[in-house]
Each structure stands twice: as structure tokens, then as C-alpha cells.
């Protein structure tokens, strides 16, 4: 089996979720080639070898420095053919998922996104995907000879299994039509831990009373090296930016630890957090539904508990 992995980067570094995609491909067995698109540091490319890629391709065309969905899909479809790949693996993301869909259509491949574990190849090729916003799973057979799979965070564990690989330049023949969308500018939080990729998330709800109280959440997040999140009303009211909104209609997170403070635990919020390994709930109402979905809970006033928790974690680390 020949596997091609699309590795996404941000600010020259390969994303952690893409390292998981390489690890996932390696664990599937077979020949793993990784491809990176746009500007990426040379050492980052070579290091993909450590996580299981035997070949690393780099499409460095300047025009590809921005993530244009159609252009990226064209590059990946060409690489898939050149590498005689059977499967394309990528990490689901705001870029990876829409790109994967177009690649699958270009190649006439079977497509599955949201895949949570290694495929079962004992008879055919069966993947387990998360559906109903984390409330269930579907095991589906991918029956075409070519396959595209998008994996969810934590579908594989990143491990060093090899040594740095050499990098081959990859030339894709791109047409003007591939660039018919133009990215004119972007705004991006830098230096912060990004919510969809975070190992720990500290999240606040309407119980925090107002944006002026977010300092305590940010303090705790800083101590933990965590990302900050919030419930939908909090972003609707403009207390926090939209990209922090967690849930059914927001970001779906899958951290090791999710700490929910002053969030009631509406089912739509839970839908975004049910892939978390461990959930801590702090709420002054003992009957808040979130406690039913939690591993650990404290009934009490957030304004009282947050500073104490912050101190206790500082002391323990």
C-alpha cells in the first residue's frame, strides 16, 4: 500500500495534527510519502522522516504560500498520481477537510473524514468515523481503489520511528483556474495555543458574567499552557472572539483535559467537547447538566475557585 500524507504548516512549522497524520499512515503500514505545500522550514520537512515518512515532497511554488483550496487540491491530486498512491491521509482542519473533498472528487476516490482510528483491513478497508457531532460512530467500508481519509485529532500517537528524510522538490502544473479564489488578507492569533490543536482547554461560559472577568481564565490557561474557549452565548455577545466558541456549531475540541467554568452543559455545547479525555466542571449550581458529562466536578463560585486552582497548579508543577 502506498500512502501519501498531506502535511499542513503554519508559520513554517508542520502542524502537530499533521504529524499525527504521518504517524497514522506509518501505523497503517506500507510506503509513506509526505507532501508539504508552501513555505516550510527545511529541518521541519526533513523531520517528517522521523515520524514515519520515507519520502518527503515539497511543493514550494511561491503562489502556494497561501492555502488556496483549489490549488492545494490540484497539487495533491497530481502527487497522488505521481506517487501511485492508494490512500491520501490528511488531518481534518479548516483547510484539510475542504481540500480533501475536492481531491477525492478529482481522483474519483472513496472519501471519509472525521476518522478516529486506524482502518481495519482484515476484510476490505473499514474506517470508523465520528458522526452526529460526536454522539455516535459509523464504521464504513471504502470500496474504491483510491481512498482519501481525513483524521480527527488524537487518531494516532506521534512517535519517533525513523530518521530525517531527504526532501524532493515537487512541481505541480497549476492553471489560472486553480487560483480563482484570491486570499486578500488574514488575521491570526500568533503565539497563542490554538484551540483545535490544544492539549488542554480552559473554557468559560455565561457564568463568568462579563469579558472583564476573563483575566482569571487566561491566567489559568497560561499556567497550564492551555488554549481558551467559551460557550456560544459568550461569543455571540462579543465577550470572546468567534473562533473560541466550542460546540455543535463551533469548534469541536479533543484535548486531554477540558476545564469548563460557568458553563451549564447544554447538549449543543457537550457535542463539541465529548471527545475530550478528561473533563473538569466548575459551576455554582450542583444541578448543572454538565456534571453528568464530567470526570471531576466542583460546586462553587468560579471567582473564588479560579485563583485558588491557579495557585494549586503552579505549586504542583
Amino acid at each position, binding site marked *: 500500500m502506498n500512502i501519501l500524507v498531506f502535511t499542513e504548516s503554519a508559520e513554517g512549522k508542520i502542524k502537530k495534527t499533521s504529524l499525527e497524520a504521518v504517524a497514522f499512515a506509518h501505523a497503517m503500514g506500507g510506503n509513506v510519502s509526505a507532501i508539504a505545500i508552501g513555505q516550510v522550514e527545511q529541518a521541519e520537512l526533513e523531520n517528517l522522516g522521523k515520524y514515519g515518512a520515507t519520502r518527503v515532497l515539497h511543493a514550494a511554488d511561491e503562489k502556494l504560500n497561501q492555502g488556496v483550496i483549489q490549488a492545494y487540491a490540484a497539487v495533491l491530486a497530481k502527487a497522488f498520481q505521481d506517487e501511485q498512491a492508494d490512500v491520501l491521509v490528511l488531518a481534518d482542519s479548516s483547510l484539510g477537510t475542504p481540500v480533501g473533498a*475536492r481531491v*477525492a472528487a478529482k481522483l474519483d476516490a472513496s472519501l471519509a473524514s472525521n476518522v478516529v482510528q486506524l482502518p481495519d483491513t482484515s476484510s476490505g478497508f473499514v474506517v470508523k468515523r465520528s458522526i452526529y457531532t460526536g454522539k*455516535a460512530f459509523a464504521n464504513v467500508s471504502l470500496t474504491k481503489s483510491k481512498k482519501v481519509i481525513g483524521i480527527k485529532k488524537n487518531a494516532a500517537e506521534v512517535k519517533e520511528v525513523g530518521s530525517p528524510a531527504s526532501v524532493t522538490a515537487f512541481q505541480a502544473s497549476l492553471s489560472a483556474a486553480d487560483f480563482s479564489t484570491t486570499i486578500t488578507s488574514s488575521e491570526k492569533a500568533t503565539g497563542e495555543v490554538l484551540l483545535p490543536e490544544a492539549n488542554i482547554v480552559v473554557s468559560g461560559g455565561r457564568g463568568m458574567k462579563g469579558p472583564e472577568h476573563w483575566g482569571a481564565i487566561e491566567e489559568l490557561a497560561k499556567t497550564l499552557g492551555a488554549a481558551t474557549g467559551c460557550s456560544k452565548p459568550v461569543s455571540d455577545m462579543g465577550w470572546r472572539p468567534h473562533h473560541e466558541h466550542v460546540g455543535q*456549531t463551533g469548534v469541536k475540541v479533543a484535548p486531554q483535559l477540558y476545564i469548563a467554568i460557568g458553563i451549564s452543559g447544554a447538549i449543543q455545547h457537550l457535542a463539541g467537547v465529548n471527545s475530550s479525555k478528561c473533563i473538569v466542571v466548575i459551576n455554582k449550581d450542583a444541578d448543572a447538566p454538565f456534571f453528568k458529562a464530567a470526570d471531576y466536578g466542583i460546586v462553587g463560585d468560579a471567582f473564588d475557585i479560579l485563583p*485558588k486552582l491557579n495557585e494549586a497548579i503552579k505549586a504542583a508543577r
Partner: protein
Amino acid sequence: MKILVCISHVPDTTSKINFTDNNTKFDTNGVQFIIGPYDDYALARAVELKEASGATITVLNVGLADTEPTIRKALAIGADDAIRVNAEPTDSFFVASQIAAQAKGGGYDLILMGRESIDYNSGAVHGIVGEMLGIPSVSPVMKLEIEGVKAKLAREIEGGKEYLEVSLPFVAGCQEPIAEWKIPNMRGIMSARTKPLKVVEPVATDSGVRLEKFELPPAKGAVKMIAADNVVELVTLLKNEAKVL
């Protein structure tokens, strides 16, 4: 301007999910169905565009006859006519093939969808349709302004936003805050009853995806409560028991 809005018919976001027939069928017992929440944003934006500068809106659903109340609701919200492709929506590739077949030659300037359905959560239909029609697809779109033959969009990316320009026609997968959800008014509900709803048969396609079995996640263990004056114990448990610190 002609706008096509593709809507899924999905369980209400508060639904408990269960399966029947040896875990091969979704159990609709006691489940309320709604327009997919993201598709509802797409529809709302279409209605705003229509109100601002005139447009006709066609809604399209791939589904069996039981989806018609959901389609009527979209008509009540402001769509002008509807198409139902009479087939069970088995997977994103199948649905996209049906949408592409209907859109081809339809002369739509804009095809709006949700960023993802809340049953399959694939986030794929818009991309596949874009590819099949040979036009751009952009998702997840949180802002959409039409300026003549061009559109200005904002797309949500991890930790931020990206601003784009694209020429019509294109496909967009929408999400908030692109528009406010619209609630149908009495006049809308009355007029929806007589708006045209065309039923067409599906085109044949091999999606290459076959369901084997559904599965529910394992039940969650009981929560461990810790006294509010004992946060140190919480930290100890997170460290030594849960091993997440």
C-alpha cells in the same frame, strides 16, 4: 441572481441518538427533525441577499418524502421554490453527485450550503460539488458580500480569519455569523404551502462508501465531586489518577 441553497434534514441538536436493525439504521423514534443549523445560516444569508438586491432562491434536499415538512419550512423562511431528489442521502459523495446533477445547467450564480451536516459531519459536499461543476468552493464561510460579479468572503481558520475574493459562480459552506437564523412568519408559512416543490429521481452514482455498522460511544463513568475548598485534591487527581497534567 439565482441562488441554490442545499439543506439537510437532520435530528434536532438536542436529540438522543439511537440505532435499530442491528445498528444499521438510525432510530427516528421520538426525534424532531430540523434544517441543518449551518444550512439554516446559508438560507438566512440567501434571504438577506434577496431582500437587499433581489434574487430567486431554490432550496434543494436529497431525501425521502419525510423531509418535505423541513423543505416547506425553508420555503416559509423565504425560498421561492424547491427540489427534492427522491433518495436516501447515504453519504456525502452520493449527495454531492445529486446536487451537482441538479445544479448543472441550472444557471445558479451562487450555491450555498452549510459548512457541515450535523448527522454525517463530513464537511465535504460543497467541495465535491465545486469540483464536479468545475467552480470554486470555499468553506467555512462566516461573511459573504456580493459586489457585482464578485464576492468578498471571510473564512474561519484555526485561531483567526482569512479574507477572500472570488468570482461568481461558486459554492460556499456557511457558518455563523454570516447571518441571523430566520424564523418563518405567518405569511411565509401560508405562502409556503403553494410554492412549487419538484420531486426528481436520483442519478446513478458509485460513491464508494458503504455503511457496515453504527456504534454508540461507551457510557461515561460517574463524576467525582471535590469540595470547593479542596482544589489541591483536584490537582492531585488530575496528576496521579487522570494523568492529564
